[in-house]
């Protein structure tokens, strides 16, 4: 234990405390230009009503805002608030073992970190939030990331790095208290289960009744197995070779899927949602007990490359296609809260729904633990933590654009649950017309024919809508005639990393469970004990599999019912993370800067607690789970059937599901409140002690590594690196520090 090394207030900039320099004329001009372009883009978006507006304005507004935030706000947080100190060795340098503690090039670590935080969340959330129009989503994705999401990722990364890469749960326990720690542990585990279930639900909804999709996703498994064997036995370690082969096979699988439609295979692969649930549960279990080299690692390479490839492709596609916004700036559903995609008004539900692209609690699990053990220099937390999250937000903006440039009649026909659209093109068209959007059954049929899917009606979950948007943009950009390929390519790409997340998440859940139960039953905690692994995996898979099944069979629509639970859970986890970093700022005597994390924390608590309150106590049966339960229970008691239930069994199911969802919702909120209350006590104690409270920060050890802080080395940093090279001699930076036995403990 040690207390913070307190330094004078004037030391506000990098490097070596040289103080502030006057900005050059060039830098003033460049940043003024960026600010003007950004301001113009925002003005166009905010004032446009009824004219055609290019989607590129959204892109420019976002990119300029990110640039300014990174240049000024992230720098302020790094050098003034956190006081990153490059004279101090990072855990990667101090505890180097070539395994988890490993000094890693900042650009490479940025890639690792981004690959770990980016998943299906930022793609799906904005698509669903598009029901409120493009403006609320755009504003929250950009403002949210700048002031909340990126701040959370960067500060958690920093504080975990100062504690040798301790996990979020560990830090809460040690810095806030045992009660908060246990609540956080349970919350993290429960939230992970919900997240896995909802991710799996998205895959099920995207693949149901779609033989082409099932075919190409199913083939990703043998492709990954082949890569695994290739890397283990045929050509050990040649990852680039294996990945190149894998990508080619993957594209062949997507093309091949188009050929099976009218064959017996196509019929065999037309699976119902129930069968897909079974397939996913079996897959999830098997994948999480197989050795990682066989399936997880190779598929992770594939999904990382696909992720980066698709984002780049989509960005280029947007610039070439320059699509026009079809959605309203603010739709009537935002004002009235009666939208079919998810219920509830703009506040708080647009913030809940967008989730990962603006603020994601799950990132705090990555920013503590894995990444902090690999950071070379403290100042790099700005690039990796803040910059990585800006990149994720950019993915969310791209997804939002894809959803708001497609025909809005089609958007609502796809995203309203089957219970209200009736499931056929005719009934869906008349339902959508009733909402006030133009579309006909022929239009809907033509849209599904264009991408060679049997139907697009009520393909909820966001993934199919995003895939239609991507297919539109890429066909516009690179020529028509390939829409069906692009659609299934996009579906495959989303499902690929959802499967990776499900596999990795199940594995992490298994480790958590074994670790926790190992406290009372020693044998179970032994990670190499096979029966323990299998039991723990089975429990984790059964938990998310059960919720997945509940969602899939819900007559009210699983996404409509479960996505809010997922969004709130993720934002509640962010509440825990922001509480922790706020406590730490105060404990380290930086109470005057506590607003940096305190304001996003307050906002996050306001939205999540309002949303939780409404989901539990709202009298509106479309919003409140228990009001919904009551409505159906009353009808059941009177012997009536309420739409969309079609029989007594479905009535039972709705009543049961509403109760389950409501209870889960209440439990999550209570767990977070326990952490917050515990934190308030600790904060009060720290404020009374005026700062100097013991924390678990590791004492400073001088660093001998010289590395640039940002993406590009400045002239000054290049000089410092050359100087260091001359002093220590070549080969002393970073590499060449394996243990005697090689890269193993």
């Amino acid at each position, binding site marked *: 234990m040690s207390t913070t090394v307190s330094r004078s207030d004037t030391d506000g900039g990098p490097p070596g405390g040289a103080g502030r320099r006057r900005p050059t004329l060039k830098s003033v001009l460049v940043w003024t230009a960026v600010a003007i372009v950004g301001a113009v883009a925002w003005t166009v978006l905010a004032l446009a009503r009824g004219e055609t507006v290019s989607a590129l304005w959204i892109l420019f507004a976002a990119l300029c805002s990110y640039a300014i935030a990174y240049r000024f706000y992230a720098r302020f947080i790094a050098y003034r608030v956190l006081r990153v100190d490059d004279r101090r060795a990072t855990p990667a340098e101090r505890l180097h073992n070539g395994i988890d503690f490993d000094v890693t090039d900042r650009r490479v670590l940025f890639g690792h970190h981004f690959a770990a935080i980016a998943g299906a969340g930022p793609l799906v959330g904005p698509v669903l939030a598009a029901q409120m129009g493009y403006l609320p989503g755009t504003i929250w994705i950009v403002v949210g990331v700048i002031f909340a999401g990126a701040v959370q990722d960067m500060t958690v990364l920093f504080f975990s790095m100062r504690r040798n890469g301790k996990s979020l749960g560990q830090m809460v326990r040690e810095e806030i208290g045992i009660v908060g720690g246990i609540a956080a542990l349970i919350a993290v585990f429960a939230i992970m289960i919900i997240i896995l279930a909802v991710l799996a639900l998205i895959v099920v909804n995207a693949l149901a009744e779609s033989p082409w999709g099932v075919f190409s996703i199913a083939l990703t498994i043998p492709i990954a197995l082949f890569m695994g064997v290739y*890397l*283990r036995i045929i050509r050990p370690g040649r990852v680039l070779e294996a990945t190149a082969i894998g990508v080619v096979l993957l594209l062949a699988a997507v093309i091949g899927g188009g050929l099976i439609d009218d064959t017996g295979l196509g019929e065999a692969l037309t699976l119902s949602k129930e069968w897909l649930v079974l397939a996913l549960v079996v897959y999830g279990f098997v994948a999480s007990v197989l050795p990682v080299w066989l399936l997880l690692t190779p598929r992770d390479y594939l999904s990382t490359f696909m992720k980066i490839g698709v984002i780049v492709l989509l960005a280029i596609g947007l610039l070439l296609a320059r699509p026009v916004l079809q959605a309203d700036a603010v739709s009537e559903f935002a004002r009235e809260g009666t939208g079919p995609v998810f219920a509830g008004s703009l506040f708080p539900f647009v913030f809940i729904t967008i989730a990962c692209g603006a603020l994601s609690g799950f990132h705090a699990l990555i920013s503590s633990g894995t990444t902090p053990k690999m950071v070379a220099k403290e100042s790099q937390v700005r690039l990796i933590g803040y910059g990585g999250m800006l990149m994720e937000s950019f993915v969310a903006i791209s997804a939002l654009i894809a959803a708001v440039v497609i025909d809005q009649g089609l958007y609502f026909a796809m995203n309203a649950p089957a219970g209200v659209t009736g499931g056929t093109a005719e009934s869906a068209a008349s339902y959508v017309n009733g909402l006030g959007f133009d579309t006909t059954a022929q239009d809907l049929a033509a849209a599904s024919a264009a991408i060679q899917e049997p139907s697009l009606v009520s393909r909820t979950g966001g993934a199919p809508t995003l895939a239609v948007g991507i297919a539109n943009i890429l066909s516009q950009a690179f020529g028509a005639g390939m829409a069906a390929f692009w659609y299934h390519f996009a579906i495959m790409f989303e499902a690929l990393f959802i499967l990776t997340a499900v596999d990795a998440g199940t594995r992490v859940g298994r480790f958590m469970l074994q670790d926790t139960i190992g406290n009372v039953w020693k044998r179970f905690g032994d990670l190499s004990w096979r029966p323990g692994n299998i039991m723990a995996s089975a429990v984790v898979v059964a938990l998310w599999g059960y919720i997945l099944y509940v969602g899939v069979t819900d007559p009210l629509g699983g996404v409509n019912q479960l996505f809010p639970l997922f969004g709130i859970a993720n934002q509640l986890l962010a509440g825990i993370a922001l509480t922790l970093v706020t406590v730490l700022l105060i404990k380290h005597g930086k109470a005057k800067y506590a607003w940096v994390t305190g304001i996003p924390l307050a906002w996050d608590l306001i939205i999540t607690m309002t949303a939780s309150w409404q989901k539990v106590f709202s009298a509106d049966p479309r919003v409140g789970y228990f009001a919904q339960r009551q409505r159906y229970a009353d009808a059941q008691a009177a012997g009536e059937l309420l739409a969309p239930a079609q029989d007594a069994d479905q009535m039972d199911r709705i009543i049961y599901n509403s109760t389950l969802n409501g209870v889960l919702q209440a439990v999550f909120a209570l767990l977070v409140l326990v952490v917050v209350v515990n934190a308030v006590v600790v904060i009060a104690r720290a404020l009374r002690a005026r700062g100097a409270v013991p924390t678990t920060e590791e004492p400073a050890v001088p660093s001998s590594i010289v590395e640039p802080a940002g993406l590009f080395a400045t002239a000054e940093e290049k000089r410092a690196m050359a100087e260091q090279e001359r002093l220590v001699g070549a080969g002393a930076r970073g590499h060449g520090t394996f243990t005697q036995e090689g890269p193993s403990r």
Partner: protein
Amino acid sequence: MTGGNATAVRSAVTRALRGVHWYLKELTGEARWDDYLRHCSEHGHQPMSRREFERRRADERERNPVSRCC
């Protein structure tokens, strides 16, 4: 385009491609083997086989699961 220009362009492209290759090798961890060989030659160790080396890295990954976010 003059000859000097073409050479400059070619060397810039080569540099860029080399940079991409370096980045991908580092990102996938393929470069760890090269690091290990360099380490062995610097310290005069007899390196283990590549198969053995990759097996140990896989075992490490088995013990340290990496989470993937939503």
